[in-house]
C-alpha cells in the first residue's frame, strides 16, 4: 500500500515552533494567478504512520547489510558505520556552502586532503571533487579533453575510442560532450586488440576511454604500448576508475600513462550506494591538464585553505557548489582508516576473492575468458541455455530465493548470457563457498525441472514483475482510485 493510501485528511506528523506570522498574508503580496489554489497532494500521516511505512519498505529491500552482493563493476563492499557517524556530525552536515571561507576551514581541509590522497593513490597531479558520480566524472573528463584540444587548436579531434566491453556510461558521456564514439572490438582474449586500435587511431581521435582491469576483470597488459600509441598520436588516455578496487597500491593509472582518471568513491572507497546514489566521481589529471579542471578547486595558501576559481582553461562549473561533500567526508575517513597497507591489502584480497570464486565457479559454468582475473570475472552463460534450458536471468532470479543477490547479468555485452561477478574484499570465504553451493543447487534444480527455475523467485516479497507492460504503458505516479 502506498503512503498516499495511508493518508487521512487532517492527520499531521509535524510540529513546528509556534511563531507569530505578523499578519502577513501572501495574497496581499502575490498576484492571485500566481498563488496556489489547491495544496499539492502530499500524504497526511501521523509520525508513527510514517515510521511504519518506511520501516516496512526497508524490510522489502536487499542491501549489503543483508548479505552477499556480487554485482560486477559495482564494488558492493562493506560500508563502515563509522563513516556515517562522521558524516552526520553537525560540523559537516550543517554547513552552508556560502559561509565565509574562514568558518569552513575544517571542511576545506577535508577536501584538500582527499584531493592529495587520491592523487597519490592514482599517480595523478591534481584532482577535482566536483563531479557527483562516475558518469559525471566521465563527462567532466571528456569536456576537459574537448577544451584541451580547443585550446591547442586541434578542432579536428571529434572522436573518442571506446572498447566494446566498456561501461555504457563511457560512450554516453563522450557523446554528451559532443564526441563521436568509435567502438573497437576486443580481441579473443578479452582485451584491447592493438591492430583494431591502430586502425582506429588517426588525428581525429581526441581520446581513448579505458578501464584497467577492464570490465571482464582482465588486466590490459599492453597498456604501456597503448599509452604510447595514444600519446604518439596526440590522443589523450582516459581511465574509468570503476575498477580501481583491483589495483590500489599495486599499480597506478598515472604510471600506466593515463592523462585523466575518474574515481567512484561509492565503489572503491566504501561510501554507500544509497539505492543508486549519491555517489561521488572525483577527476584527476596530469599536470598538463591541471588548468582545465572545473572550478572551484581547493588550494592551500599561507592564509589557509581557499576555493580557487582562476584556472586559465577551466571547463567551467560542472555542478553547483563543491561536489558531494558528504560523500567526500566518508571516503577520507575510509582512507585514513585503512592507510597505505590497508588499501593495498583491500585490493589484494578483492583479487584473491575473485580468483577463488572464479576457480570454483568455473567448474560449473565456464568463464568467458580463461586465466587469472583481477577483482571480477565474467562467466559465459550459454551453457545454461544449452545444457539446462534456463537463461542467465532465470539463474539470477532463483538466487534471490536463496537469499543472495545475483551478479550483474547481460553485461558486458560482448559475452552472451554474461554473469559478471565481483565479490569484493569484505566477503569472507564462507560467503563465497555458500554462493558456489547456491549455484550448484540451482543447476541441479534446473537439470530436474527447468520450468521450476524459470518461474523463480518464490520467496521474495513479490514475484517476477511484468517489466514490458510497465515500460509500454508507463504508470510513473500514484493516482487516487476515484479518478
Amino acid at each position, binding site marked *: 500500500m502506498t503512503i498516499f493510501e495511508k493518508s487521512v485528511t487532517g492527520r499531521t506528523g509535524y510540529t513546528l515552533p509556534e511563531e507569530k506570522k505578523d499578519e502577513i498574508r501572501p495574497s496581499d503580496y502575490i498576484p492571485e494567478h500566481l498563488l496556489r489554489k489547491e495544496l499539492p497532494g502530499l500524504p497526511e500521516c501521523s509520525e508513527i504512520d510514517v515510521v511504519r511505512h518506511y520501516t516496512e519498505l526497508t524490510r522489502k529491500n536487499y542491501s549489503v547489510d543483508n548479505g552477499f552482493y556480487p554485482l560486477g563493476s559495482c564494488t558492493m563492499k562493506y560500508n563502515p558505520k563509522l563513516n556515517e557517524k562522521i558524516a552526520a556530525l553537525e560540523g559537516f552536515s550543517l554547513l552552508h556552502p556560502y559561509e565565509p571561507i574562514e568558518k569552513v576551514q575544517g571542511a576545506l581541509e577535508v577536501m584538500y586532503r582527499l584531493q592529495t590522497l587520491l592523487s597519490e593513490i592514482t599517480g595523478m597531479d591534481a584532482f577535482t571533487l566536483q563531479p557527483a558520480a562516475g558518469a559525471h566524472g566521465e563527462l567532466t573528463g571528456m569536456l576537459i579533453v574537448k577544451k584541451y584540444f580547443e585550446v591547442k587548436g586541434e578542432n579536428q579531434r571529434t572522436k573518442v575510442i571506446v572498447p566494446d566491453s566498456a561501461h555504457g556510461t563511457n560512450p554516453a558521456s563522450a557523446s554528451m560532450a559532443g564526441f563521436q564514439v568509435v567502438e573497437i572490438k576486443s580481441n579473443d582474449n578479452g582485451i584491447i586488440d592493438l591492430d583494431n586500435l591502430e586502425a582506429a587511431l588517426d588525428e581525429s581521435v581526441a581520446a581513448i576511454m579505458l578501464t584497467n582491469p577492464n570490465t571482464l576483470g582482465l588486466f590490459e597488459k599492453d597498456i604501456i604500448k597503448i599509452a604510447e600509441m595514444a600519446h604518439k598520436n596526440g590522443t589523450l588516455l582516459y581511465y574509468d576508475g570503476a575498477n580501481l578496487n583491483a589495483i590500489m597500491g599495486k599499480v597506478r593509472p598515472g604510471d600506466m600513462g593515463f592523462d585523466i582518471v575518474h574515481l567512484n568513491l561509492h565503489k572503491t572507497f566504501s561510501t554507500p550506494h544509497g539505492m543508486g546514489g549519491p555517489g561521488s566521481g572525483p577527476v584527476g589529471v596530469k599536470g598538463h591538464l591541471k588548468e582545465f579542471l572545473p572550478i572551484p578547486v581547493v588550494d592551500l595558501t599561507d592564509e589557509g585553505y581557499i576555493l580557487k576559481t582562476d584556472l586559465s582553461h577551466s571547463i567551467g562549473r560542472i555542478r553547483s557548489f563543491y561536489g558531494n561533500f*558528504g560523500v567526500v567526508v566518508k571516503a577520507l575517513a575510509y582512507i585514513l582508516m585503512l592507510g597505505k597497507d590497508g588499501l593495498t591489502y583491500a585490493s589484494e584480497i578483492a583479487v*584473491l576473492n575473485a580468483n577463488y570464486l572464479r576457480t570454483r565457479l568455473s567448474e560449473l559454468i565456464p568463464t568467458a575468458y580463461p586465466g587469472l582475473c583481477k577483482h571480477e570475472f565474467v562467466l559465459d552463460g550459454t551453457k545454461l541455455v544449452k545444457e539446462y534450458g534456463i537463461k542467465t536471468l532465470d539463474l539470477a532470479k532463483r538466487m534471490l530465493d536463496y537469499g543472495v*543477490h545475483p551478479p550483474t547479468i547481460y553485461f558486458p555485452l560482448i559475452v552472451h548470457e554474461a554473469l559478471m561477478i565481483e565479490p569484493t574484499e569484505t566477503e569472507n570465504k564462507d560467503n563465497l563457498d555458500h554462493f558456489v553451493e547456491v549455484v550448484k543447487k540451482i543447476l541441479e534444480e534446473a537439470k530436474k525441472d527447468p520450468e521450476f527455475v524459470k518461474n523463480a523467485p518464490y520467496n521474495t516479497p513479490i514475484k517476477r514483475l511484468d517489466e514490458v507492460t510497465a*515500460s509500454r504503458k508507463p504508470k510513473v505516479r500514484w493516482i487516487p482510485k476515484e479518478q
Partner: protein
Amino acid sequence: MKERHSYIPHTPEEIKSMLETIGVPSIEELFSDVPKVFDFELALPKGSDEFSVYREMKSLAERNTNLEQLAVFRGGGIYHHYIPFVVQALASRSEFLTAYTPYQAEVSQGTLQALYEFQTMIVELTGMEVANSSMYDGATAVAEAALMAVRTNRKDKIIVAKNVHPEYREVIRTYCSGQNIKVEEVNFDKNSGNIDLETLKSKLTDDVSGVIVGYPNFFGVIEDLKIIRELLPEKVMFIVVANPIALSLLEAPGKLGADIVVGEGQPLGNPPNFGGPGFGFFATLEKYIRKMPGRIIGETKDTEGRTGYVMVLQTREQHIRRSKATSNICSNHAHNAVTAAIYMSVMGKEGLREVAEQSFAKAHSLKERLLKLEGVTEVFSGPFFHEFVISFNKDVEFINSELMKHKILGPLNLEKWYPEMKSCALFCTTEAVRNADIEFLLGRLEEIL
C-alpha cells in the same frame, strides 16, 4: 600485506587454502599480469583505528562553524530548514543506505516504491505529469533540461534569464559547451527584479529550443510564468527552476504552462551538507517522458497480479542505449530523494504549507523592518517568496563580518556575481529563523549602519 583488518575478514589459513584452490603460490602471483615496471611505493600514512579516525575527523568538523551555531539569513540555493528527527532515523536505515540501484526488482521493492512515491510527490508539487527519480542537483537538472529541450526541438539555442542562480547558469554553459549549444542570457528588469520581457521577446529567434527562468528567481522574486509562457512560441520549451518549498504557496508551474520543472531538492528534508549531496528533481509532461534523462520507476503487476514497482523506459538509458542515451546519468541521488519523500510524508501538505508561510511571512516582515533602517534601500519591487534584495550604504562584506562577530550569518553579497549590484545583499528567512533572531539581527544592524 596487513594480516588483520576489521573490514577484511580473511585469516592467514583461509588465504592459504584459497590460494591452493586457485593453484597459485601467493597473492603476488595473482598480479603477475601487471608489468613489473609499475612497481611503486604508496606514500600514504599507515592505517589507523576507528577511535583515532573519529577524533581526527571530529576535530576537523569542529573547526567549522555550523548552522546550529548561527542565526542564518543566507540562502542562495541551499536553505536551512527544520528537519524532523524521524527523517534521518528512517533514511539512515541500512537497507536504504547500503542497497544498490534496484536492478533486481523482487528484492528492491522498498527502494522502488519509495522512489515511485517520491515521483508522485514531485508531480504533485510541480503540477507536471511525470517526474524522474532524481538528478545530482538543481544545476545539473536544469542543464539536462536544456539538453532535453535541444534534443526535442533540434535547435541549438537556449535562453536563460540572468536572474537564474549564477552557478546554475555556469553549469548550463558547461553542459552545453560539449554539444556546441548556444546559451544566451536575458537581463532582468532593474525595478522589479523579474526577467526583462522586452529583451526576452527580442531574443526569441527561430533557433531557440528552450527558455529557462527561476520560480522564484535567484533574487527571490516570483516570475510571472503565465505572462512569460504567453510570450513563447508554442514549440519553445518553457523550463522552470523552482524552489520546492515555494511550490506549496505558489501556483504549480504545470498550471502556468511549464514544459519542464526542475530544481534543487535539498530544502526537502536534506541537510545543507556544505552544498552536497542534495538532489535535483526533474518533472515534465507525459508526452516528453521518453526524452527525459534519469531513472524512472513505474508501477506494474507480478505473476500473481500483485502491484509492484520496476524501473521503466530503461532503453533511454546509457546502459542500454549507450552513446544514443538521453543522458549519461547512472548513479543519481536516490537516497536524498527518498529522504525528501520521508520529509514530505511527515510534514504532509499542511506542514509544507506552514513551512512556506512562515518562511514567507518572516521574509516580508524582515524586509519591511529593514527598509525602516537608515542606510537600507529597496532594490526590487517584484513579489518575492523568502529571499529579497536590499542595498546598504556600506560594504556588504564589512556588514557581514560585523554580523558574524555576533554569530549571525548575514545576507549574500551579490556583487560577487553581479558586479553592477554594488552593496546589494540577498536576505533569506525560513521557518528555522526565529523571531528572536530577527530582532537580534535588526538590533545589530542598527549598530553597524
